């Protein structure tokens, strides 16, 4: 029956074509990162100088000027968001990991997953109605609130996974010594889970650092060195957006410069988180 031990040409060709096609698609997806990164780097490099990262924005036509206040504002807003999101996220993750059996826990996990897909602009609207409207003015704090809500799903999930990842034998070791629940968690389980929780936090911070949409009606932006979170504040991502859609070449140049800074910050956070994870993974 089988006269020829080779594969029928059509079948062989189909396989080769398939592999080439799928390979091309992955190269395309990965190549895009390089194209975008490269373009931002080339365009942005020219705009970056000491004045750009340290000075206030200047009006159109006035030379120099920078995004210094936006950089500071980003740091302030993200830091406050982390301060809000970390306790809620880690404790909720802990609750799910320790007591998380049954329907209500599944429901909370489901809510966290779904919240991670809710558009950031909807969360921005929420922050507006809660933190802006009642006080009748925009504020950095309202942006932090929106960012905190955006960070929560990731914080909850990574915390739960990190805590579940601590071996039962270690947990039982604490139990057997007669440590109360909180003692075992605080002194034994959380320290063991900390590297993974920190990774999750870094990824969550990376995610919100690039967020722009909710800022439009929360932080709003500012031309000044604003350090008070109760007032409107400049944010780097928002400055990029404003400059990009402006009609001025000089502002476009600054938008590319800002984009380069932003992308570097986000990539460093991501790569850092992955490296921390890798090192941890190898150790255990």
């Amino acid at each position, binding site marked *: 029956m089988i006269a020829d031990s080779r594969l029928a040409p059509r079948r062989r060709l*189909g396989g080769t074509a398939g592999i080439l096609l799928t390979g091309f698609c*992955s190269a395309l997806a*990965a190549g895009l990162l390089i194209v975008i990164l490269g373009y931002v780097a080339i365009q942005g490099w020219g705009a970056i100088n000491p004045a750009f990262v340290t000075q206030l924005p200047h009006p159109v036509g006035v030379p120099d000027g920078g995004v210094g206040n936006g950089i500071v504002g980003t740091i302030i807003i993200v830091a406050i968001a982390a301060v809000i999101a970390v306790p809620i996220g880690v404790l909720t993750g802990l609750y799910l990991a320790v007591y998380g059996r049954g329907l209500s826990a599944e429901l909370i996990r489901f809510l966290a997953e779904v919240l991670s897909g809710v*558009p950031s602009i*909807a969360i921005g*609207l*929420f922050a507006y109605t809660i933190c802006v409207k009642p006080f009748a003015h925009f504020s950095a704090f309202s942006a932090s609130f929106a960012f905190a809500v955006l960070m929560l799903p990731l914080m909850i999930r990574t915390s739960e996974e990190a805590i579940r990842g601590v071996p039962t034998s270690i947990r039982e070791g604490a139990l057997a010594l007669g440590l109360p629940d909180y003692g075992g968690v605080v002194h034994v389980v959380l320290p063991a889970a900390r590297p993974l929780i920190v990774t999750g936090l870094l990824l969550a911070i990376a995610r919100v650092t690039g967020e722009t949409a909710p800022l439009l009606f929360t932080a709003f932006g500012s031309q000044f060195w604003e350090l008070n979170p109760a007032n409107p504040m400049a944010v780097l991502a928002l400055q990029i957006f404003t400059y990009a859609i402006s009609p001025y070449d000089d502002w*476009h140049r600054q938008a590319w410069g800002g984009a380069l800074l932003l992308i570097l910050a986000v990539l460093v956070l991501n790569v850092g988180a992955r490296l921390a994870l890798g090192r941890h993974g190898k150790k255990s």
Partner: protein
Amino acid sequence: MSLELDSPRTVEVSQRGLTARQAIADRVFRIGLVAATLTFVILIAGLFAELVHGSWESLVAFGPKFLWSSEWNPVTNHFGALPFIYGTVVSSAIAILVAGVVGIAAAVFLAEFAPPAVARPISFFIELLAAVPSVVFGLWGLFVLAPFLGSTVDPFIQRYLGFLPMFSGGIYGIGLLTAGLLLALMIVPTVAAIARDLIQAVPNELREASISLGATRWETVVHVVLPSARAGIVGACVLALGRALGETIAATMVIGNRPAISASLFAPSYTLSSVIANEFTEATSSLYLSALLELGLILFVISFIVNGCARILMWSMLRSQGRRP
């Protein structure tokens, strides 16, 4: 150091209960956990409630016809969401079509064919692509992608397919097609990364069974591996679709921001999220603001449903393989 050994029994331990301090600490700890979890649930409930509350005026004024009225006129205070729903749906549909094909193909290559030395860096790049902020995508889309499409690709398509309504009309560079393609770039990593994990999770026995029947590796992938991961991959695409539906800044920068419904994909359009982004701080009347909040509510409900479905699809696949999600 003293080596005098106490008898174990002389240590003061209360026989039955914790000391008062420990009992309080334990209680505070438990309360803290429950309080944090409740805070989270209340936040989500509050999110929904606030959006409903904020859009109440518009809900009352326009009722369900808000959804299919295409008039958006702040001067006369008449508001309808149809142009934005249209723009959102069409741009997201383009995005998921393109990203679905490219993403699944990339996932197949990474999971099934690429040697680790190739798969690892490519996976790494694709995952980093997911981390690029949307404002950077928007910037690149506005200054690189849109001019390129407008000057090269769109005219080429129109020359050969211009008889179709979807490829007719003026070419501006910015518009539905550009927005859809830019969104596709942004969600490719989501599809590719999740689909790759799901394909890798397909049990090896299935592959071996197929290979031992004489199938090639490609045939095995197409006829055995992909079908058995289908529910999950569909879930991944739905998840990515959810991201495209809600993406704001990048879409705002390249879609043209015109509340009109046009058959042509080259025409400028508007999405739910970009109209909120552009007009929210300029809304003058309370009804206007309320209408914008109602757009946010629609977005929230759509994304809730879409993401809920995606999660259920992926859970059902992992469950059926006897795995904990």
